[in-house]
């Protein structure tokens, strides 16, 4: 017993202490989202009254088109994730399985590009898309399709790099067999590779979804209209530094926006942790 105490008590002490540290802000947000007054000030850390007021405000108040924001976020992050993985997996397949001149150089360039922090070129993206807006108002600055295109471009580097890592780990035997049977590269890709890599593609799609969902500054720069905003920009603008006034609805909104992401993240934990060493989502 004494030995157990000496060996394990400090481990549990650290575990409990850091768990409290982790959970504390989240607990606070949850209870303030059910606090009827909706104010930032909490009179006690144990809730006495329970109310859906803040959630009600969030969905009913005309000043907060929350459902539209959620829809925008899901639409943008979903499209970017799906399209970028479709396009990225083709390139990753080619890097991993095909032989061509300049392959080594291509991989090295890709490595450099995926390291480049997109935010550095943000003023250039802004100016370029402003010009695009001049001749094609539907896909330029201030539009969701424009933002989508910029996201797609930005997602390419990381996604191809990540997918290439995964594809490399898929054994070659199957596609070599297909090759011997006379399948072309395109057929091997669609008929052998895609079904085989489906779980991996799904994981990268979800990771890309989380990454896009989390993006703030480009969305802020692009989406000026209230109704085109993503949930991150919408909530941030809504709270507008006035934490004391809009805290309740904000707390409710941030919980609803976070739950799907947390669920995806926890269910993908295994893959994300193994992908961490490959340098993925965030950190």
């Amino acid at each position, binding site marked *: 017993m004494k030995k157990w105490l000496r060996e394990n008590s400090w481990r549990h002490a650290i575990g409990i202490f850091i768990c409290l540290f982790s959970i504390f802000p989240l607990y606070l947000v949850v209870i303030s989202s059910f606090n009827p007054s909706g104010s930032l000030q909490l009179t006690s850390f144990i809730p006495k009254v329970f109310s859906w007021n803040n959630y009600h405000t969030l969905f009913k108040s005309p000043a907060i088109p929350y459902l539209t924001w959620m829809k925008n976020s899901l639409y943008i992050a979903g499209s970017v994730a799906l399209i970028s993985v479709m396009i990225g997996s083709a390139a990753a397949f080619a890097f991993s399985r*095909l032989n061509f001149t300049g392959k080594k150089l291509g991989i090295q360039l890709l490595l450099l590009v995926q390291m480049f922090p997109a*935010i550095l070129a943000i003023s250039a993206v802004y100016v370029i898309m402003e010009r695009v807006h001049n001749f094609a108002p539907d896909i330029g600055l201030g539009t969701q399709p424009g933002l989508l295109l910029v996201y797609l471009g930005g997602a390419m580097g990381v996604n191809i790099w990540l997918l290439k890592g995964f594809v490399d780990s898929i054994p070659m035997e199957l596609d070599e067999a297909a090759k011997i049977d006379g399948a072309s590269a395109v057929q091997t890709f669609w008929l052998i590779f895609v079904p085989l890599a489906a779980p991996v593609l799904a994981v990268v799609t979800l990771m890309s979804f989380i990454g896009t969902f989390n993006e703030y500054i480009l969305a802020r720069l692009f989406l000026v209209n209230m109704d085109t905003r993503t949930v991150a920009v919408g909530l941030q603008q809504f709270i507008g530094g006035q934490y004391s006034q809009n805290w309740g609805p904000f707390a409710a909104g941030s919980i609803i926006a976070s739950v799907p992401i*947390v669920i995806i993240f926890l269910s993908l934990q295994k893959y994300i942790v193994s992908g961490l060493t490959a340098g993925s989502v965030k950190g």
Partner: protein
Amino acid sequence: MMTLLRGKVAYVLKLIVVLVISVVLLMLTQHAVAQREYAIAIFLAIAVILIAFTYLTQVSVPLKFFIPGLLLLFAFVLSPILYTVVMSEFNYKTGNILSKQQAIEQIISRAVEPDANGTSFDIKIGVSNGVPAILASDTINKQYFLATEKSRIDLTADQVTLDANEVAATAPNFRVLTPTEMQTADTKYSNARFVFGKTGYFVTLEGFDVGVVSHQVLEYLPDQGIFKSLVDDSVYRDNGRGNFALTTDSSNMLSPGWRAPIWFENYTKLFSDSKVRGPLIRVFIWTMVFATGTVLTSFALGLLLAIAMNKPMRGRRFYRSILILPYAMPSIMSILIWAGMFDTEFGAINNILGTHIAWFQNASFARLAVIFVNLWLAFPYFYLISSGALQAIPSELNEAAAIDGANPRQIFRKITLPLLLQILSPLLIASFAFNFNNFNLIYLLTGGGPRNVLSGEIAGGTDILISYTYKIAFGSNTQDLGLASAISVVIFVIVAGISLYGLRKSKVLETFK
């Protein structure tokens, strides 16, 4: 399935898709040419050719896989990078945004002054024979005329009907604009010059009710490339930096200017101009302190946790699933939540501490808060990678050391830690590079503040290089895209250097040798 992919149906489908995409891109190309956006037009045209060439012939199989990704990468990653470098060579800021041609047109249309007597008319704006026209009334002398940009027709008093203010409201061949037309008419009318009837003079609008007799005061001489005054003999010359300046007083410049190449001036400004250099050095130091501090604190906490949990014990899974929550939350939401918790009046932090600290109004407190919040956000990541690395260290090593009589502390310091650092150093470096540009944290938590508003300084106490750059480009009254781009290029060189160093350590590059 195989036959479908090979068959005619698939071929026709492919043809349709390629055609539709090409047509859309060609239409865009045409629009781009029409708006004189030649660089974009050339890119679009090349994209069409590449797509058609790749998918309709069998010349290159790998290209079939690469083209969509390659085009997107080029359009939205590579070309912005190149464009950033180009912009950094230009005097590109508020007041110098237009092209030279546009700037000249603007100067000409702005160089208008009322005549010496300040003659003005009450007017109605409207349409005459399908072109913009004004109906002008001299209410004192009871004289009226109808003017377009081409002609002037004098009207007698019985040709017009007057409204309550004795201003002519109707006239033959003239229709007053409806209120809805008024809203969209602005540019068409405000820049128009209506015929007055005296050489060199014309009527321009001041609002929608008053017309002023004006004349041109500056004239552009294209063959000499100068602006010459029509009133006195002053001359404005291209100063080589994007403005026309008076020959006798170079600080007297015509507005607007244009974006002109100034080569390395934006870069030399970073080091020589004390107004730029001072804040930049302060921001750079804080960026380094922040990135180092945040990596060290989060790594320390994560490692401590990993060591504590590095043993099968009851509740480990439970701890783990709670510990990972800060990392699983969307970081934007967490940052905003923390910003609320640091609120001076009602925030939970002051509430618990029983203090009344204005966290974000004091630079030192704000910096502490930034590092603290990032500790919360990032420690699970370091916990995860540290526990992974701990498991990768062979247990034989520790056992051998124990047999040799080393105590647990010695084993940790002499064996575990050095090995751990060796395994993790690429990730620590990558994390340093990430935090070097951790824009969201700074921007959403403190907004880079606190800053001294009175001194007009735009760099705040917690601004890191990237948020400072963003403010230079977008966040203040004068947007200086040229200077911001120059700083971006410098940051990129630093970050690329750090990342390449990290990569060399991680030996990823070795696989290509």
